[in-house]
Structure formats: structure tokens, C-alpha cells
């Protein structure tokens, strides 16, 4: 074995460019105002194999370089070559991966290497790097500063040549990253007959995230004599847990997996009303119960809560499921890898639903610190613009390479997300109601004796402790092994293969390997048959030497756990071979009642299934509500609303995200009828995504979302209500059938458990109680069942005075039926003469509004306090939504836009932008007396529509009994004028609005 270095660099010439280098140049310009004259790039490969360098060199242009546009060189660096790099660069930086980090280009190169050298030794491997040569640096930045913007030292390494080194021909040479050997350790026994303090110490030093009561529950388990005697029979240590068992319990009982806070018993006090009450599991009381009540009234709720995603019957032939998850902690440490594993991870939840669903659409919602943040950045974290770029690029690569369109999403900005960005990834899945063999696809059918396969990727040291890690707050010492990079192509191959296996009737049970790895995936499936036996020695590893507990809990990506009848094993394995997917039998289902783990012949864990899944004690928590105090937002008396409009359109929370969204494939599968951007120039905002996934059939699905985290500053209950209402409003805008809608609740909260490090835990828990009470109230009124959800409860950075906690945030995602995608509405104004109406009314609810934050930030006003938008009568709104949806999906109304951040003013501006047309609007009579409320207020339940004059009467007939107020007309001119009776408050040109709206988040670094 030897290491051979091969490099490729773009040729120059007419029409040829070094695009990779130029992208870096423009990014440094956009983010750091560095103006370099040129950046050139070299891609490098370090090939570790028994193939001779001469042979590799002869074939370099067949594999590593594209001979039409690139040069290649072997066993030297291009920088040494005067003909290709004829000018000496000022700075050269070479970036490669750290040992053991997923190197996708390297993996692909190895695959290609084997095509050309089929006899290369089995342990051949390839590692890649990229070198940037900078010109015209001058004294704009130090080499270290530039390098720090190009790599993440958690997962990558950089070698730098500064100006002097460049002049001396001392070039950066990245070497092959040898993986450090892992030491195999036999399972340790842990003595739990120790003091309480020592129990806690075991939990803390081992990153187990178990509290004292949980540790004591484990302690008493091992004191049980019947347990001890059953352990003796299988030859495992009788009265102590092995490290395998303790790790397995820690993963299974983690907040991440068990949702202990949502399951806790809460003693709730409301100091405002004097109420004292007990909530015995928020989840069961406010989420599960309402959905189960609704399940009795409809026949389309097929599977809720217990599977990897919730399933509804779409029609007689097809069912649809959806799931959303967060990947916040990993995305904070490595935005690219963390976000990518987020999106490909939630795709696996869909593949693991029922007997396997096909992912057909993604949604992404991100919450970041301000992209132009000038203040301090917490230790070890990144500037928000870097987080935005990394997260976006991870989600883009993950979604695009998986062939799943991203059809809906949002990006929200607030300073408090500096410490922990929120990265919500959602996926919609489609499956035939019945498989060819007659089984219903949403029901898993495992039986004792089935063979359990691990399919897809291998297990490595990466991804150990993800579940417990995310159940702790981020600190400077957060471990790098919790961060991984996804491999979408390995997953795509697995997905293709498993869907074929499903249709061939080979699968009896399937689930994803996510948090907790095999311990969770096999452990959860073993509940169906009441037992399993796993042999960890059979699990294929990325590198030898992993100890049993590491194999069991590692969260290495791209793996599914699949059960197959033993007689189908041959067919299953040959299908896997065809697809070049690794599938290894690692376990079997039993009915022994035991989670039985062996390493070869010896038993390393032996836990009762019941104890593993139901043994965790219920938390007892206290919550206490008193309303937060804010200086009231008092709008200034004399101000130019024109300039407010321009400033509002440029606010990151409102500004166009087009340059980012366009980089997602939103049209693969050829189904997307309403795309993320709409209108004449295809740059107006869409309210919801609409797809027609059955080719040739216009029946549709609507996907939308709602999020309003800043309302939590006043009342987290109002925040939750606003998120749900926004999701439904968005769906109504495109004409969803309101009689078949389902929702997902994804809560991201700061730690709500009162403790020394969280002195305001009671308040944060009270926020959670209020949010869930509102969730129940609104969902019941909207007949909107929550079919799946997730919570992430430790979104804090640091401790003590420097602690940053996110604002309590609920993302509400909605999916629903659409009778015919040919009848939808979009936000862009269509034709001059169309009549504009406001559905709903504007109340004096300016508390925590975008305009209040803006005027507070620029010093015009003192505070954001006041009445936050509320939903007093959701039943009434639902009536209005039903009527409007009908008007839209029957084809009467072609223009509709949700009114949210920035109120009517911003909504109408966006409608003009989309239509590249003017409008005359009169706000007189649209609600509260204050023009601020009517122009900028964010009252819920409002949608602006435009209807052609010939359909106007019919529209008004359908809307009768609901508040529908005439606002004005779409005009031929390029002028938006908004008046309040006789007084003109806004008059502005459409192009000016376009410029304001599109400038802020462009961030592309200018001209190509």
C-alpha cells in the first residue's frame, strides 16, 4: 500500500473559468468585504492503494480530471508548475478532512477507482482536499483569517502558506488522514451501589444526561433478585449494569428519545389569574387526546403518533405521511454537516413509516441570528451568515442529491438564535394504500423469528452520543464525535432498493436508525414481538476496534433497520447486491420479553423490553406564569410611512430569500404546481407549496407552515396560536380542502426545568403549558389533527449570566388535500381592474410586531409591548377560511396572499412585486381606528385577495356572513398608493419596492 497524490485544476482559455475559486472570491466579498483579484482552485486526491503511481497517472484523465477542461498531475502539486501557476499567489490554503470524517468525494472517487482498477486491494481508500490560491490579498486580511472562513476545525484541517512561504516555493501539502486506531474494549461493569453524588457524577462524566431519580431507578433494577437470577442464566454480570446497558438506557431514556418534559406531571400556577392546576403529560392532554377525538369523526386518519410519521388516507389508492424534525445542536457546531444529516435523517423517517413510504417533498425552516450581526459571537460558534451558508448548503445538497423537491419553508431571524440556530427539516411521503401482496402499507407486520437487517451505511465512531448530547446545553466543550456529514448517495441507493423490496413484499417491519442508533431502532421494533436478540459482532464497521457499547449506540448515518421473513432473506440480499447496498443480518425478533445483545457468544446486555421502554420515571415539574413586562410600543405620531415600507421590505424577516431558495430543486418528480416563487418575473413569494404527485392527475397536496417566535416575548400561547393560524392561512391561500388537513407540531424550547443554571425554568415551563393549551384550542376549532411532532427542549448556549436562550418557538407544518391543482391562487396581482378585498379584520394588536421591533431597534420607540395578536374566535375564522378556500379551489379567485409580518402594508407590496403592477388601496373601514394597526398590524385571520370583476359577485356571495372588506383595485400603473380615507399614507413605485425587498439577503457577492 502506498499513497499517491493526484491533483486536478481548471484549464484557462476563452470561455473557461475557475468557478470554484471564483465562488470563494465572491463569498469573501459578500460576507467580509474582502476584494481579491483572483482565487484559483486545485482539487486533490490522496489514494491509498496497492496500485502503482505510474498506472494511476496513466488513467488520471479517465477519473480524477476531465481532460477537456482540466489538467491533472500525479505525485506533485500544481503550485510547483510554472506553466500552469505562472504567477506566484499571495496566500495558499489547502483544506482537507480530519481522520474519520465522512469524505463523500473521496467515497465516490474510490468507487470510480474500482471501476478502473477492479483488482485494487480491498482496503484501498481515497481522501480528498481542495487548495485555494489567492491573488491580490495585500493587507486586507491575514492568511489565518482567510483560512478560518474556509474550514471548520471540528471536522477539517487546513495547511497554510503565507506570502513569504509562497515566495520560497514552500507549498501547503496536506497528507493522507490516517484514522487513529480504535481500541476494542470488553464491556465494563459499573458498580451502582454508590452514593447519590457518585451516581450523578457517572451520568455527567459519561454524557449520559440521566438525572438522579433515573439513575436510582436503574440502581434498583439491578437489586431485583428475579432480574439477577435471569441474568445469571445468560451469563451476564448479575447485579451491575454493563456499559452497554447503561449507554443503551441513557439513549433510550434521553429527553431526545423519550420526550420526558412533554410526558411530565406539571404543577402549574398562573399568578395572573390565580389558577393552580396539574397537567399530567402535556403531550397526552393537549396533543394526543384532541387528535384521537378527531380520529373518531373521520375515516382518513390512518396512523397517528406511534410510527415514524403520521399517515392519512389521501384517496382510495394512496396515503400520505409527513414528519418534521430539528437538528439544532449539530448545526450549531457544523452547519453544513449538521443540517445535511437533518434533512436526510427526516427522509429516513418517511422511508421508515409503515412498510416504507417514498419521500416526495421537503420543507425547510431555519431560525438564525441576524445575517449582518456586528456583535460578539459565542465561543466555538459561527457568525450567523456563516451558519446560514452552511445550513443552506447542507440542506441543498441533502435534498437535491436525494431527488426530493424542497417546496416550502421559511427563514426567521432573531439575535437569540446566535447561540443555537434552529434547523427544522420536514418531509412528505407517499405510499400505495395496499401493497401488491394485499397488506396495508401503513401497518408493520413483524413476527418472532424475522431476520433483522442493518441496511445502508456502516457504523463508525462518528455520531456517538448524539441523542444525549442534544439533551444537554451547548458549551465550549461540546464533543466533535456528535457531528457527522451525511452521504445522500448512499442513502438514495438504499431508498431505491428498499422501495423495491417493499413492493416485492419482502419487508415486515422497517425503521430508521437515528438517535440512539441500533439500540433505539431494534429496541423500538422489538416492542412489536416483545423481544430481540442482536449480535453486535456481525455489524459492519467503518473501522475496526469499536467497542460493543459504541456499536450499539452510534448514530452513524444512512442506515435503516429492516425485518424480513427468513425465507425471504435470499431475495432481499440479492436485491441489495444489485443496488450495491450493504445489508447485513444483525439480529432476530424473539418473544422472550428481553432486549438481548450479544457480542459473538457472550451476552453484553440483557434488559427487559418493558423496563427499557417504560421504566423511565415520570418527571415532576413546576411551572409558574406571570406575564413578561415590556415597555409598550407607542407608534410615533409623525412619520413617513413610505420610508417605513421600504425599511420593512428590507428587514431580513421579510426580505426575499430567492437567491437561497432557488438553489433548492423544487421541481424534481415533475409535480410542483405552485412553486416557491410566483408572478410575472417568478420572484413573488408563494404562500404554500402545491404538488400533483400522481403523474397525469391534477389532484393535489398542499404543504404549508407557520412560525411566529417573537410573539413568545409577550405570550407563548399567542405564539403557538399564530403559528397554527399562519399555517392554515397559507394553505387556504392556495385553496386547500379544509376538511382534510393535518398538522405537525415541532416545539423548540429553552430548558424549562428549574435549576441553578436555569433560574427561570418555571416561567419557561409555564410558556410551554400556555403554548400547548392554545395548540389544543385552535386545533380543535380548525378540526386540524396533529398527526406527528417532535420537541427539542435544550436550546440554550452557555451557562449563567452569558446564557443565550432561544425564544420559545413552535413550527407548525400543515399538509392537506387539494381537489385540483388547476384551481389555485397565488400572491401576485394578475390583471389591472381586479378587485382587492381584505378577508378578516385588523385589530389594535401591535405588540411584538415586526414594525415594533424595527422601531425599537432604530431607537424611534421604547418597546415592543402591547396586545399581541390573539385568536378570540377561531371557530368564526374557520368558517371564513372554509368559504374562501372554496372560492379558490372552485376557480373563482386567482389571487390570495396571507397577511403576516408587516401586516397589510407588506402583503400588498409583495402582491404588487409579484404582479409587477400597481394598486390603489383604501384602508378606511378595515378595522381598528389606528392606522398603524390597519397598515402594519399583524392581526391573525387575514388574507388579501383579488378577484376579477366578473367573478366579484359570486365571490361575495360565497363569503357572505364573513368579514370581507373592499380595499381597492389593481392598476395599470407601476404605483402602489395606500390611503386612509382621504389621506394618502403611501405612494411608491413598484421597482423601488423590488429593490428594497431583494437587496438584503442576496448575498451572492455581485456580478458573475
Amino acid at each position: 500500500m502506498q499513497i499517491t497524490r493526484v491533483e486536478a485544476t481548471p484549464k484557462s482559455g476563452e470561455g473557461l473559468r475557475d468557478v470554484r475559486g471564483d465562488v470563494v472570491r465572491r463569498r469573501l466579498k459578500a460576507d467580509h468585504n474582502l476584494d481579491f483579484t483572483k482565487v484559483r482552485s486545485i482539487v486533490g486526491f490522496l489514494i491509498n492503494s496497492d496500485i502503482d503511481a505510474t498506472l494511476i497517472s496513466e488513467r488520471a484523465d479517465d477519473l480524477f480530471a476531465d481532460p477537456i477542461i482540466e489538467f491533472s498531475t500525479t505525485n506533485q502539486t500544481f503550485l510547483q508548475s510554472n506553466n500552469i501557476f505562472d504567477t506566484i499567489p499571495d496566500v495558499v490554503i489547502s483544506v482537507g478532512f480530519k481522520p474519520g470524517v465522512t469524505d463523500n468525494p473521496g467515497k465516490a472517487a474510490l468507487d470510480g477507482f474500482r471501476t478502473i482498477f477492479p483488482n485494487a486491494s480491498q482496503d484501498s481508500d481515497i481522501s480528498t482536499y481542495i487548495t485555494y490560491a489567492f491573488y491580490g490579498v495585500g493587507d486586507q486580511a491575514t492568511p489565518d483569517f482567510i483560512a478560518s472562513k474556509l474550514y471548520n476545525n471540528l471536522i477539517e484541517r487546513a495547511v497554510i502558506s503565507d506570502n513569504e512561504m509562497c515566495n520560497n516555493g514552500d507549498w501547503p501539502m496536506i497528507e493522507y488522514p490516517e484514522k487513529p486506531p480504535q481500541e476494542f474494549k470488553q464491556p465494563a461493569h459499573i458498580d451502582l451501589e454508590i452514593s447519590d453524588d457518585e451516581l450523578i457524577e457517572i451520568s455527567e462524566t459519561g454524557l449520559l444526561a440521566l438525572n438522579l431519580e433515573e439513575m436510582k431507578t436503574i440502581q434498583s433494577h439491578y437489586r431485583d433478585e428475579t432480574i439477577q437470577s435471569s441474568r445469571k442464566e445468560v451469563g451476564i454480570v448479575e447485579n451491575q449494569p454493563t456499559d452497554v446497558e447503561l449507554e443503551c438506557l441513557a439513549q433510550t431514556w434521553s429527553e431526545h428519545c423519550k420526550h420526558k418534559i412533554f410526558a411530565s406531571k406539571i404543577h402549574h400556577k398562573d399568578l395572573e389569574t390565580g389558577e393552580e392546576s396539574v397537567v399530567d403529560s402535556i403531550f397526552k392532554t393537549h396533543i394526543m387526546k384532541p387528535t384521537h377525538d378527531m380520529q373518531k369523526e373521520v375515516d382518513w386518519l390512518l396512523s397517528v403518533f406511534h410510527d415514524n410519521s403520521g399517515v392519512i388516507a389521501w384517496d382510495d389508492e394512496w396515503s400520505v405521511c409527513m414528519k418534521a424534525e430539528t437538528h439544532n445542536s449539530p448545526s450549531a457546531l457544523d452547519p453544513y454537516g449538521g443540517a445535511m444529516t437533518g434533512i436526510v435523517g427526516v427522509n429516513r423517517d418517511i422511508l421508515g413509516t409503515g412498510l416504507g413510504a417514498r419521500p416526495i417533498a421537503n420543507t425547510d425552516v431555519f431560525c438564525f441570528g441576524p445575517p449582518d450581526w456586528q456583535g460578539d459571537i459565542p465561543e466555538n460558534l459561527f457568525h450567523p451568515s456563516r451558519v446560514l451558508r452552511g445550513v443552506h448548503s447542507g440542506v441543498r445538497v441533502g435534498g437535491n442529491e436525494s431527488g426530493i423537491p424542497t417546496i416550502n419553508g421559511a427563514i426567521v431571524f432573531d439575535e437569540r438564535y446566535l447561540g443555537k440556530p434552529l434547523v427544522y427539516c420536514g418531509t412528505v411521503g407517499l405510499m400505495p394504500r395496499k401493497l401488491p401482496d394485499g397488506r396495508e402499507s401503513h401497518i408493520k407486520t413483524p413476527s418472532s423469528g424475522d431476520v433483522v437487517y442493518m441496511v445502508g451505511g456502516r457504523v463508525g465512531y462518528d455520531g456517538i452520543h448524539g441523542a444525549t448530547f442534544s439533551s444537554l446545553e451547548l458549551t465550549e466543550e461540546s464533543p466533535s464525535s456528535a457531528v457527522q456529514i451525511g452521504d445522500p448517495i448512499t442513502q438514495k441507493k438504499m431508498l431505491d432498493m428498499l422501495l423495491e423490496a417493499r413492493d416485492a413484499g419482502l419487508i415486515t417491519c422497517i425503521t430508521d436508525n437515528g438517535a440512539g442508533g441500533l439500540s433505539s431502532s431494534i429496541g423500538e421494533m422489538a416492542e412489536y414481538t416483545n423481544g430481540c436478540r442482536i449480535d453486535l459482532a456481525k455489524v459492519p464497521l467503518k473501522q475496526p476496534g469499536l467497542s460493543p457499547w459504541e456499536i450499539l449506540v452510534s448514530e452513524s448515518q444512512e442506515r435503516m433497520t429492516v425485518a424480513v421473513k427468513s425465507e425471504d432473506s435470499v431475495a432481499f440480499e440479492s436485491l441489495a447486491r444489485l443496488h450495491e447496498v450493504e445489508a447485513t443480518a444483525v439480529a432476530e425478533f424473539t418473544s422472550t420479553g428481553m432486549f438481548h445483545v450479544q457480542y459473538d457468544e457472550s451476552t453484553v446486555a440483557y434488559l427487559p423490553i418493558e423496563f427499557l421502554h417504560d421504566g423511565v420515571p415520570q418527571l415532576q415539574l413546576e411551572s409558574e406564569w406571570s406575564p413578561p413586562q415590556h415597555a409598550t410600543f407607542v407608534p410615533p405620531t409623525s412619520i413617513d410611512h413610505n420610508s417605513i415600507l421600504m425599511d420593512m421590505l428590507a428587514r431580513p424577516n421579510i426580505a426575499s430569500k430567492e437567491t437561497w431558495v432557488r438553489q433548492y430543486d423544487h421541481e424534481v418528480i415533475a409535480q410542483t404546481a405552485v412553486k416557491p416563487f410566483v408572478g410575472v418575473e417568478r420572484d413573488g413569494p408563494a404562500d404554500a407549496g402545491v404538488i400533483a404527485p400522481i403523474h397525469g392527475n391534477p389532484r393535489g397536496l398542499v404543504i404549508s407552515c407557520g412560525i411566529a417566535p417573537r410573539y413568545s416575548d409577550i405570550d407563548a400561547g399567542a405564539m403557538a396560536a399564530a403559528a397554527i393560524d399562519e399555517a392554515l392561512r397559507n394553505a387556504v391561500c392556495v385553496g386547500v380542502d379544509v376538511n382534510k388537513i393535518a398538522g405537525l407540531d415541532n416545539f423548540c424550547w429553552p430548558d424549562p426545568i428549574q435549576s441553578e443554571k436555569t433560574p427561570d425554568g418555571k416561567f419557561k415551563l409555564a410558556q410551554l403549558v400556555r403554548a400547548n393549551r392554545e395548540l389544543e384550542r385552535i386545533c380543535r376549532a380548525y378540526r386540524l389533527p396533529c398527526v406527528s411532532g417532535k420537541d427539542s427542549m435544550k436550546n440554550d448556549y452557555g451557562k449563567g449570566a452569558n446564557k443565550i436562550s432561544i425564544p420559545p418557538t413552535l413550527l407548525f407544518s400543515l399538509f392537506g388535500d387539494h381537489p385540483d391543482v388547476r384551481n389555485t391562487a397565488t400572491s401576485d396581482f394578475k390583471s389591472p381592474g381586479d378587485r382587492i378585498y381584505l378577508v378578516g379584520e385588523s385589530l389594535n394588536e401591535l405588540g411584538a410586531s415586526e414594525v415594533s421591533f424595527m422601531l425599537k431597534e432604530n431607537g424611534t420607540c421604547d418597546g415592543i409591548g402591547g396586545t399581541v395578536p390573539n385568536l378570540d374566535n377561531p371557530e368564526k375564522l374557520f368558517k371564513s377560511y372554509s368559504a374562501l378556500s372554496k372560492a379558490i379551489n372552485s376557480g373563482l379567485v386567482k389571487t390570495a396572499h396571507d397577511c403576516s409580518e408587516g401586516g397589510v402594508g407588506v402583503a400588498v407590496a409583495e402582491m404588487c412585486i409579484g404582479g409587477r403592477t400597481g394598486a390603489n388601496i383604501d384602508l378606511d373601514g378595515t378595522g381598528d381606528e389606528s392606522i398603524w394597526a390597519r397598515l402594519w398590524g399583524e392581526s391573525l385571520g387575514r388574507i388579501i385577495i383579488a378577484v376579477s370583476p366578473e367573478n366579484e359577485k359570486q365571490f361575495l356571495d360565497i363569503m357572505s356572513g364573513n368579514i370581507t372588506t373592499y380595499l381597492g383595485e389593481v392598476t395599470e400603473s407601476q404605483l402602489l398608493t395606500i390611503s386612509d380615507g382621504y389621506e394618502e399614507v403611501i405612494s411608491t413605485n413598484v421597482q423601488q419596492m423590488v429593490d428594497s425587498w431583494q437587496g438584503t439577503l442576496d448575498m451572492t457577492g455581485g456580478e458573475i
Partner: protein
Amino acid sequence: MYIPKVAVLFGFGINCDHETAAVFEMVGGKSTRVHLNSFITGLDDLSNYDILAVPGGFSFGDHLGSGRLMGNRMRFSLRDELSKFIQDGKPIIGICNGFQVLVKTGLLPGPDGNEPDFIQRASLTLNDSGRYEDRWVTLEFNQDSNCIWTKGMTRIDCPVRHGEGKYVMPDKESLTKLSNNNQITVRYIDPNNYTETNRDEVLPFPQSPNGSMMNIAGISDKTGLVFGLMPHPEAIYAQWLHPDFTRGAAPKTESEISWEGQGLQIFRNAVDYVKSIND
């Protein structure tokens, strides 16, 4: 009536196989999604089919250049079968990643002779913008082309969804020959400013989404049977997929299918061509 059999290739990250299979069925073909390894291992035989479609996607994650690794698999493991398929006069289409694959295998633009030589003559590389983008473009078809796929096509709107769609052929002579042979089958155009004389001047972004030489969006081989393009005609099989549909302005077609979009005709052309030979 003869029903043409279409092999729609998938595997290794190809991801437009479902819709590509669907559009051939809409125009009277019989589609089978075939994993590339089925042909390589002999589980299935390419000669069982009349048409080969290499759909879009991200084979091998575009690593080492889009289409490269998939192209190599075909070039080194399916060479004889592909050669025979082409010499039997059977149509092949490559869309997006499929186009990249056909260019990297050397099937496009192909040799001067009639037998494929699997030598790469051009490339599809990173867009000048450096960004993968999903956006709609307007395409103009070459009326003098002998390509059987584009017969009768004039101008359509289509989405592009790629990061590496810039067609380059640094050898000027070859590029001129490609143009003179009318192998430049389809170009990006600015519909508001298009003439026969300015069609080769590289358009600015975003009318040209990638900076392709001569605004090339797709090319065919000498026989007109092998065709590849970066944009996705299958993604405009129905009018409701057009971004102007919601404005009541999606282009209509003369098809009997009332909702048919402009892209479907490409697939119908090939199916009809095979029918005309076999009937």
C-alpha cells in the same frame, strides 16, 4: 400497433426516473425502470428495448464531475451493448445528469464515423454563477437539425435544475463543426431579443443559466438518434407545471390531451419514430 419499449435507467443517484418513465407512457410507450446493474450483470438485456432514456439526477453525487462515474460504468462495463444499440438505430435521450453522462461517455456529440468510439469531446461544467439553480428558461430548437427527438419543435419553456450545465468545447474547430452539422439541437434564448444572427453570442445570466458556449442547451449526434439536453422537458408534461399557469398564461399545445404541456412532444417524437419503423 407496436408499442415501443423504453428502458429508463436508474440507480446510483439518478432521480428523475419516475417522471421520465411516466411521460413515455403518456405518449404510448411502455416504460420499464431498469437499474444500470441489471444490464451490467445480465439480469436484463439492453437489446430488449427500443429506446434508452438516461434521466436526470445526481449520479454519484456529481463528485469528480457530473456524469463522470456513471459514464465510466457505462463506458467500461456496457460498451458493446451500447454500441450495438446505437448501430441498431435505436434512439437514446439523456436529460440533465443523463446528458452529462452521455457527454462524458463520448456518445455525445459522438464521432464522425458511425460506430461509437467512447471518446469524450466536450464537457458540461460548473455554471458560471457557481450556483446550482432551479429556474425556467426559454429554448429554441434548431429547425435544420436531423434529430428525431425534436422534430417539429420550435420554442418551449422548461426548467433547468443543475449546477454543472455549461457546455464547453474548447476546440474552436470542433465547436464550429458541431454548429455547421446542425448538431446544436437546442439553445437558450432571450425570447425578447432573438435572431438567427445573435443566437451564438453567449447570453447574460439568467437568460443563459450557465454561460454555455453558443448558448447550447442540448445537442444530438450525427445520426440524430442520440440526443441530450440540460433542461427538463419531462417537467413540463402538463400545463399546470408551467410557472405562468396560475396567471392563466401557460402555453397550450395542439394535442388531444387538453392539459398537455410543451415538453411531452419530445417523447412522443421518439415513440412515434420507433412505431413508424416497426409498424
